[in-house]
Every structure is written in C-alpha cells, then in structure tokens.
C-alpha cells in the first residue's frame, strides 16, 4: 500500500501524517509513506485544498484531518 500525504508543511499536514501512520500501525498494514510538498506535484491531484490523503493514487480525504478511526476505515476499504 502506498500512502501519500499532500501538503506544504503546515501544521495540519504534519498532523495528518501522524494520524495516518498510527492508523496503519494499528491495523498492521505495511505501507510506504511519502510526503509530497512540491506545489505543482500536489496540484496534479484532483483536490481543492491541503492536507490530503492519497492511498494507492486514489484521493481519500482532502482539506481536513480526519479522526484516526476514519482513516482506519479508509485504509481498510483499500
């Protein structure tokens, strides 16, 4: 599973990464985490605002930091 966090380094982006890592660890999922901070790379995805959570190149969440339980559900649906 490839998990990407899109965001330019603002506090919410760091929070999303932390929550995503914890969720993956809780579920025992092996995933590579990539932080995409370059603006033009971020805008290549179909989102309106950061931070955003991308799982296997599918945008799952954008513009907010979901609760860990919600992230777990998103990771489990694949």
């Amino acid at each position, binding site marked *: 599973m490839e998990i990407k966090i899109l965001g*330019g380094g603002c*506090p919410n982006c760091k929070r999303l990464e932390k929550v995503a890592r914890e969720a993956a660890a809780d579920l025992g999922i092996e995933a590579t985490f990539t932080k995409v901070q370059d603006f*033009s790379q971020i805008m290549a995805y*179909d989102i*309106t*605002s950061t931070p955003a959570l991308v799982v296997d190149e599918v945008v799952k969440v954008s513009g907010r930091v979901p609760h860990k339980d919600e992230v777990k559900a998103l990771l489990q649906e694949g």
Partner: protein
Amino acid sequence: MNVLLYVINLLQTGLGSLAAYLAAHVLLCLLPAFFIAGALAALIPKEAITRYLGRDAPKWISYPASAVGGFVLAVCSCTIMPLFASIYKKGAGLGPAITFLFVGPAVNILAISFTGVQIGMDIALARIILSIVFGVGIGLLMSVFFRKDDEAHNDETSSSRAFAQGAKVPATTWVFFVLLLGVLIAGTLQVGLLTNSYATFTLPGTWASGFQSWLDSVVPPNAALGIEGVSVHGVLLIGLLIGIGVTAWFGLNTVDEGFNRWTYVALALVALTLVVASFKVVAVDAGLSVGITGKLVAEVVLIGTVWWMAAKFFDPYAVQEWLWEMWRFVKQIIPLLIVGVFVAGMARAIIPATWIRAIAGRNTWWANLVGVLFGVFMYFPTLVEVPIAQTFLSLGMHRGPLLAYLLADPELSLQSILITNSVIGKRKTAVYVALVTLFSTLSGLLFGAWVNGANAWLIAGGTAAAIAAIAVVAAWLNSRSGRRQAAVATGSH
C-alpha cells in the same frame, strides 16, 4: 544626551504600548476572535463553499462565493495558496480565483476585529467593504484582460471533479457561530447598554491607589504619544493571560488527541479572563471600585451557552479540532504580535512626527501611494500591521493613507508574490500587483475624502465613475483582441 535615560524612555514607551494592547478591551476582542478563527477553520467544511466555485458556476454566484470563501476559508495563509491555485486551475477560472486571493488576507476575522477595536470601527468597516468591492472588481478586470488564456486552460482542465462535491453547514454550527460572534461583539461594542455599570461595589484595600501610582511611574501614560498606561485591572488580566499561556501549552498542544486536566483549566481561565475583563475596575483611595456592566451579564450568558452547546451538540473530535486550530493560530500569531507591538511602541518615540505629517498627513494621491508602497515593501507578520498603523496614526498620519496601508500590507509580501507567480505566471502577477496598488491607493483616497467630510454621494459617484471608466477600457481591449483573433482566424490582417 544621557544614553541610559533615552534607552529607559524607549523601553517604557514599548512596555506602555504592550500593556495597552493587553488591556481589557483588546482581550475581549482577540480572545473571542481566535476562537472564531479556529471554528472557521475546523467546523466549516471547505466543500460547503467550493461547490459554488466550479467551472460551470455562473459569474453572479462564483464571484460572491469567492469573496465569502476568502472570508471564511482563508484564515491561515497556508490555506489561501492551494485554494487559489485550485480555483484557478480546476474551478471557476482566473477571475474568482483572484477575488479569493485578494479578499482572503484583507478580511481576516482576526485582523478586522483587532483593527476595529484598536484603531476604529470606521477603518475596519471600510476595510471589509472596500476589499470585497475591489476584490470582485480586480477579479473581473483580470478575467477580462486575460480572457484568451482563461479559455485555453479551461479546455485543459475540464475533467476535474474537484469542485463537484458539496457539503452543507448544519444549523447547529450556524447558531454556534452567532454565539461566538456575540461574545466578540458584546465585549467590544461601545454602546451604553453594555458599557454602563448597573451596580458598583468597592473592594477595600488601600494598597490599590498606591499600586496604581507606582504603575503610572514605571510605565507613564503619555497622551501626546497616545499611550494609556497600565491599570491595576490590566495587571490582573496580564496575570490571567500568562496563566492561560502556561496551562494552554500543556492542555491544548495535543488536544486533537484528547482532553486532559490542563485543557479544562485553560478553558476555564479563558472564560474567567473574559468575565474579569468585562467588569469596570478603577483604583480609588478606598480600594478597588468594581462595576457590574451590561457586557458582564451578556458575556456570562453567552459564554455559558457556548460551553453548553459545545458539550451537547458537537462531536468531541470536532471540539478538539476547533480548539487545536484556535491554539495553532495563537502560537503562530501572538509571539510575533507581542514583539511587533513592543517595537511599534518604541518607534513612536523614535520617529519624528514631523516626517509622518509631511509625507502622509493629508489625504493626497502621493500620501496614499506612499502608504501602499510601505505596506507592499515592508513585511510584517499577521496582525502586526495594526500596531504599526496605530503608531503612524498617533504620529499624525491621515486616516486615508492609513487605510491604503492597511489594505496593501496583508495582500502583497515577497512570499505571496512568488507563490502567485508560480501559479499564474509573471505577466498576470505583474498586472495583479499593479491593480492592487491602484485600488488600495484609490480606496485610501476615497476613505480619506469621506473622513474629511466630503459628501458621501460625491464619493460614491466618484467610485462608480472610476469603476465604469476601467470597465470601458477593459471592454474596449477585449473587443480589440476579439476582433484581432477573428481576423487571424479568417486569414486576413
């Protein structure tokens, strides 16, 4: 001249300014404003607004929605840029994106309420109204200037679904916002009903007037420079603020993960500070005269209701996010603000008033332009433009150029220009900067004329005429390029 005395005088001026900024009426403004900013960031889903900014949205929806979006969504500069880029590239196009870019920093809730309380509601209101009017104007103008480019990239991005999702803001959230706004307004509105004391009692203690005299000697009030001095009430509030700072550090830093003991203590201290700030406290010979004001009653009721609503109607995680965003803004803004206020205060004693009066004392084109250029080239952190503006005001700057400065300062910084350039390119950025400069100068000039007592209809007429003239020029340019395009297409020149 004795250097030591000079330095001490400088420090006293700086401290005096800082203390004045921590006085009751500022706290009653800034504390609620930060909570409102946090609520805007955490409780309003961006989709609720971006659904009106899609490619197919008609102009009479997308422009107002961009302006509203600028107010609601752009509390943090880190949100403005990605949203601006998306609206431009995947949404309604250059015009609404520019309107959003302009309105966002200009009507920041923190800046507006702070401006209103410190400098005056006239400037705060002018800031809001003129930013929105000219924000839409600049957006429309740019979309006309660059229509060819806009249409070209519209075709490129037609497959985006970024703006298709919608979201609604539940009624409880609306009510909650009204309550939070109520806390802000009840504390700051200068209306007899709220500011009058309905009952007064005196806390005995002869130490009070002695303490006040000592405070006046350490941080002397200086009416000529506009420094109010520190009151006993002020010292008490500063103590409470420090308490909030310390407990919030432990209680709010990780509130997104959960509440702890310190969270409750910090929140209780915030409520207490707002309540204490609402009393009218004066040091008298017998002790402390304490007045129960209308705003005290209002604040107690409103804060209690906010607390109850947060506990009963909102998801715990939503409340945690609200507090986390609020605290995040505090950490980002307050330290720099304190330094900025202190330095701006010292500047009052250093900069000769004659300079300021000579350059910007009257409402001329030149004075307004200087105000704008100063705002553009001097970078100050968020909210610091307010104490800087107040220093200028006390040194004799006219309110017109002052507004021009306040409009231009948050708009254009080197960083924002660079990022804007990376999104829309050099030509468009240059035009944008030119338009912001022009309209900020114009706004200052018009506001200054109104302050000087010019007939309001004359001013409205002048504004309308200016806008009409620009629209005519833009339409002419547009038709010229359209004719040229058609000529090229048919192969004739």
